[in-house]
């Protein structure tokens, strides 16, 4: 019902507007509009640094049901630029809940809107593609907001790693005895990734995105990891260069999401922006090595272009580091979801084996990484 919340408006860069109520902080925000189809895990989504400068539309209507707890955040803060939901829960219910989502958004100054026909909005984005969006709960002047939206920077070409990476390096210790050490480049890393490594006896040294190959070598790490993160992979030449250095030294490498795109670029492949991206926790990906299908968590707006297309084959491509092949493909749309070098110890996936939120079907990839570091095939 119409509560006491101020009116709010949402405007897309093509002019389509939706009216609703303020949710979270009162204010105005702009960003890239993306929709996420996960039915659980809003807390993880909000705190995923990959959503930097994006306004997230939740397709699941009820959001906030389990409140906000002290355990499930994927980073220290909420990163989304704005939040669009249909029915926020007035009252959370969970034995772990500490506060309501509305309060959390307000405390972290995140502007949101509720009461919107999120399905209509999602269909619009699906048909027209990702675009810029603005939300305002200070003024319902659509034209003024539209002007602000059109003035905002686009996601293509945006280098955002610097905005989300850690300032100082830090260490996530292994659970139990340390088996291996990994240097992890933080391009927007999620808490669960080092946790998954720690579970396998890996000590993870999380490094700022500006780190050099010397910083990595100094650690004497058994392997190098490149994390997920926001922005356009083509706008990050420094990090791609760093990765080429890693590969030249034949250090075992594993990349996730943004790390996969950078791996592709380091191998000489192009990356491109998807029409509206993959964001959800129900995406079918086939592991071309085993033929098994995994249900996976995705959050990516860019992808690697396999030379000549036709990704779902056994074809290999020659790179500066030997032969490369596609290891994983999304069954919905044949997007490249994983790459590996055949002649060097390096692989990556476009999706999120660390899950959080999402299914655990792909956790085996962390074992693959430890195997690689320990020299097992």
């Amino acid at each position, binding site marked *: *019902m*119409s509560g006491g919340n101020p009116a709010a408006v949402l405007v897309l860069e093509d002019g389509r507007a*939706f009216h609703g109520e303020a949710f979270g902080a009162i204010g105005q925000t702009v960003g890239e509009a993306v*929709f996420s*189809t*996960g*039915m*659980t*895990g809003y*807390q*993880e989504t909000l705190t995923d640094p990959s959503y930097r400068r994006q306004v997230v539309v939740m*397709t*699941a*209507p*009820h959001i906030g*049901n*389990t409140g906000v*707890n002290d*355990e*499930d955040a994927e980073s220290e803060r909420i990163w989304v630029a704005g939040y669009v939901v*249909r*029915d926020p*829960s*007035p*009252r*959370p*219910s*969970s*034995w*772990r809940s500490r506060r309501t989502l509305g309060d959390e958004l307000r405390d972290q100054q995140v502007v949101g809107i509720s009461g919107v*026909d*999120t*399905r*209509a909005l*999602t*269909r619009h984005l*699906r048909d027209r593609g990702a675009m810029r969006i603005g939300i305002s709960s200070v003024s319902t002047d659509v034209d003024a907001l539209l002007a602000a939206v059109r003035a905002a920077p686009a996601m293509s070409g945006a280098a955002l790693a610097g905005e989300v990476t850690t300032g100082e390096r830090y260490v996530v210790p292994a659970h139990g005895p340390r088996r291996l050490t990994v240097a992890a480049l933080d391009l927007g890393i999620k808490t669960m990734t080092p946790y998954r490594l720690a579970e396998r006896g890996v000590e993870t040294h999380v490094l700022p995105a500006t780190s050099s190959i010397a910083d990595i070598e100094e650690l004497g790490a058994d392997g190098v990891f490149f994390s997920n993160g926001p922005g356009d992979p083509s706008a990050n030449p420094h990090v791609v260069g760093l990765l080429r250095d890693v590969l030249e030294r034949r250090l075992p490498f594993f990349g996730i999401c943004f790390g996969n795109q950078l791996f592709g670029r380091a191998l000489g492949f192009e990356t491109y922006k998807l029409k509206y991206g993959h964001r*959800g*926790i*129900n*995406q*079918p990906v*086939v592991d071309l090595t085993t*033929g*098994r*299908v995994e*249900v996976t968590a995705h959050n990516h707006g860019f992808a690697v272009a396999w030379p000549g297309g036709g990704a779902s084959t056994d074809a290999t491509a020659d790179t500066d580091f030997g032969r490369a092949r596609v290891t994983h493909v999304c*069954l*919905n*749309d044949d997007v490249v979801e994983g790459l590996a070098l055949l002649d060097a110890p390096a692989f990556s996936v476009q999706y999120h084996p660390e*899950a*959080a*939120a*999402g*299914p*655990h079907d792909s956790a085996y990839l962390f074992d693959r990484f430890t195997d690689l570091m320990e020299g097992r095939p």
Partner: protein
Amino acid sequence: MPRRDDIQSVLVIGSGPIVIGQACEFDYSGTQACRVLRSEGLRVVLVNSNPATIMTDPEFADATYVEPITPEFVEKVIAKERPDALLATLGGQTALNCAVALAEGGVLDKYDVELIGASIDAIQKGENRESFKAVVEALPAEWAAEVARSAICHSMSDCLEAVDELGYPVVVRPSYTMGGVGSGMAYDESDLYRIAGAGLAASPTTEVLLEESILGWKEYELEVMRDCADNVVIVCSIENLDPMGVHTGDSITVAPAMTLTDREYQRMRDVAIGVIRAVGVDTGGCNIQFAVDPADGRMVVIEMNPRVSRSSALASKATGFPIAKIAAKVAIGYTLDEIPNDITAETPASFEPTLDYVVVKVPRFAFEKFPAADPKLTTHMKSVGEAMAIGRNFTEALNKALRSLESPDAPFGWRGDPGTLDDLLERIRIPHDGRLRLVMDAMRVGATVEQLHEATGIDPWFLDQLALINELAGAVRAAPALTPELLRAAKRHGLSDAQVGQLRELRPDVVRGVRHALGIRPVYKTVDTCAAEFAARTPYHYSSYDEETEVPPRSRPAVLILGSGPNRIGQGIEFDYSCVHASLALGDAGYETVMVNCNPETVSTDYDTSDRLYFEPLTLEDVLEVVHAEQQAGPVAGVVVQLGGQTPLGLAQSLADEGVPIVGTTPRAIHLAEDRGSFGEVLAEAGLPAPKHGTATSFEGAKRVADSVGYPVLVRPSYVLGGRGMEIVYDDEALASYIGRATQVSPEHPVLVDRFLDDAVEIDVDALFDGEQLYLGGVMEHIEEAGIHSGDSACALPPMTLGREEIDRIRTSTEAIARGVGVRGLLNVQYALSGDVLYVLEANPRASRTVPFVSKATAVPLAKAAARVMLGTSIAQLRREGLLPDQGDGGSLPPSAPIAVKEAVMPFNRFRTVDGRSVDTVLGPEMRSTGEVMGIDAGFGTAFAKAQAGAFGPLPTTGRVFVSMANRDKRHMIFPVKRLADLGFEILATSGTAAVLRRNGVAATVVPKLSERAGRGPVDDSTESHELLPAADEPDLEGQPRGSSIVALIRGGEVGLVVNTPHGTTAGGSPRLDGYAIRSAAVARNVPCITTVQGLAAAVQGIEALLAGEVGVRSLQDWATSVRGNRAVDAVDAWTGP
């Protein structure tokens, strides 16, 4: 992996008659499976005893056997058809149990039939609680998967010992029963004796599980699908609004789960996948239930079904992921990634559906049919149907679901005095069918979410949503004016125009008018499996008060078919059958078919049955909005209201009043048939007699009518469904008692009093009329006498004792009624033949319950033909097209036509009285059966024997028969009982019955009716006193302690057949207590129990047929060929009786 090429033919086993816990969801799953397998080019052989199902339509399989689902009969089918594989995971527990029996009996090995879907080993691991527990406990330690602490018991002493460990309360669960038969919660030792005792008896392996109480925990269910390459997906999560303690079939359930964080959900998912792998369900679907302690999140696995279940049907409808269809595909070798998602067409089935809406399922109960039954909800399922609704939020979905139940008390109301807070809080502690309404009432008088959570265990999230509805209702009522914003908010949270009207003291149509004037109308969203990530190809819609509608425009004229809503006694799968047929026929005839229904168990709500599906409540408001949306989309030829039973028929006039075109019989004509006065004129005009009758609004008035027409009389409220409130009374005293109880008697709601025709033969007729010609679909003769509701009566087609002249009279009379009423389409007429007079009892200008039975027995698709007639095609044209036979009709079947016997299946074993006794099993004018079976064979005896075997279990061919007859029946019993004695049966009888038999030369052993002496079980203290004690001069039964009561003998499995006709007259609503304990014991022990003398005669014929030799099986397709072939040859020499 592509489809296996080593399988050419598959035997599919259905689930048999509709019973509580196993309803038409298995018709839905079986139909999907048959379609898939046939489209893959496989030969499909089907066994299902239920003629009302769509799957048993000859076009869905290559060979359809309407035969009993017993290992004996299925083996005959296997021997005849020699299928390569058996698929038993889509026919519920019945099919699974039958498959296990066939495997264990060596039949599958003998005929080299491979069990596909789930192996015997997997079935046993999944269903045997001890091995299931071992499976769960062996899962990886980090998942911390556990089951509730429990103990397996095989005797009462085991149980007592186990309770010492577990403490009270304990949950009792018998092994290998379906729908929770025999399970319950024991709070103390006497409960334990009662529940565990019954559970041990109900379990085929005499095994019960006692379990620590997790009462009040949150309950969840995951639907899981696996393929042969070990790809596993979770199709749907379901959360129960009612916490643990209420059977999930009786719970309000919500999809997706609402109150789990991703961490908890993923852990549940991990465990579910671990379980399906460890149990070894190779391919197909299964469901796994979980309980979560709301205080700390401790999670236990409750159980799994290694097969498609009721929840699978719900999950399929809730998500658009067709579980049964996919299960059939993976069973024959496909992997999930090879199967396209029908809805998006471009993405594969190896994904997990994501929802951008909320689904709520609410159960529908039938306690009004069993006034003596305890309405408490337990772990033993009691609901007879369910409605599902989809909304863009929980409140919208819940309110839609509640009004979908079509029960006046189901939707929330804010009128009247709700009572005191303390009283309400007390009444909601124990779950029962009206609890949610009381929870809302408690909110009205100020209950807090905390208080309500404490009393009910319902999660605070759901309670808070109810509070939201209550606040909104308060705002609507209190507002000085109903502003557009407020009205929009009310609609957004699912309040109906009727509810808003109640709050504002306005008529619903006024609210509707205001709403339309303000342009506040629902939009229609699409169920697409993917939350709009991909475009949907299948128009599967639901309404919501949101911004953007997704109904596509169309050019072909549309026909809207209104379905029958939630299953209930008297309105079930039979009507869905007719609706689906209409959709198929009208689609073939070039119309765009649009189905409107809210029952998730049905074939009609499958997204590919019709061109468009609206999953909506069948209320005037909701239907009018659908009509409007479709009229916006393109031309609408009309709305079909005749095929979905009373639900759509009841809307006909109001729809017509709003200008909606109704096809077929007009609302005016419907009224003509339903209104007694007008119908009387139709009959008078046609010169057809009806039993004398009158109406009354008081006892004095009723007595005047009874005196003038003579006792016995049939009394009933004026507008009835399924014989609600109908009784036969034999004297003034009973009449006074009836009127006293019929509280709603008023000038607007008079009581109808009809002369009851004793000893009449009741005849049911289904016919088609196009305005010119009549097609007599079939004439059914009831086996039980008039006075037993036609839905509960066994019947035979062709009629066994009617001659050609009588059938001709029936045809002429039916045509006169059809013409007089103005029928265009189907007509059902009930006649009573008494003396030589053919009385008309009633006429219903709509599809009847018997349409599918008649269609199968005569090999004519009546409902399809009816749909065409309603849209204007003539019977003559349909005969030319071949949809109807080119000559003859269902009254002139050739001598080679089979005899089909329909038998009703009763739910008596489901209900207990408040003090734990069984409810009585006597048949009467009020319908109480949930389903039916058909026996079909060349002769009546064999057909009847098959029907019995399908419904209750095989008739005995040797052993003991117990006979106890009411005085009025004693004369008629002599012949059949003598025949049983001649056939070698030992006759046991009560002393009065035995005396009559002895005088007629039949030796009968006298046994007392006295119940067990131990005093724990029910004691029947109401029988004639002289029959209570063993007579000193009567011989004792060999090997039995002197005076062993008949109840004890039945319980001990010593009696093969019970014949017990009720003594005395109906004394109001309380059950006739004579023989109550005997019938209850027979029901509990699954001993065939015959309660009418006509039934006895039929049973004797059945037994004779069984003794005469091997009973064969024959497919419907085979019968149809022979009927069609012979119809031409000897149409003239019509069948004229035995």
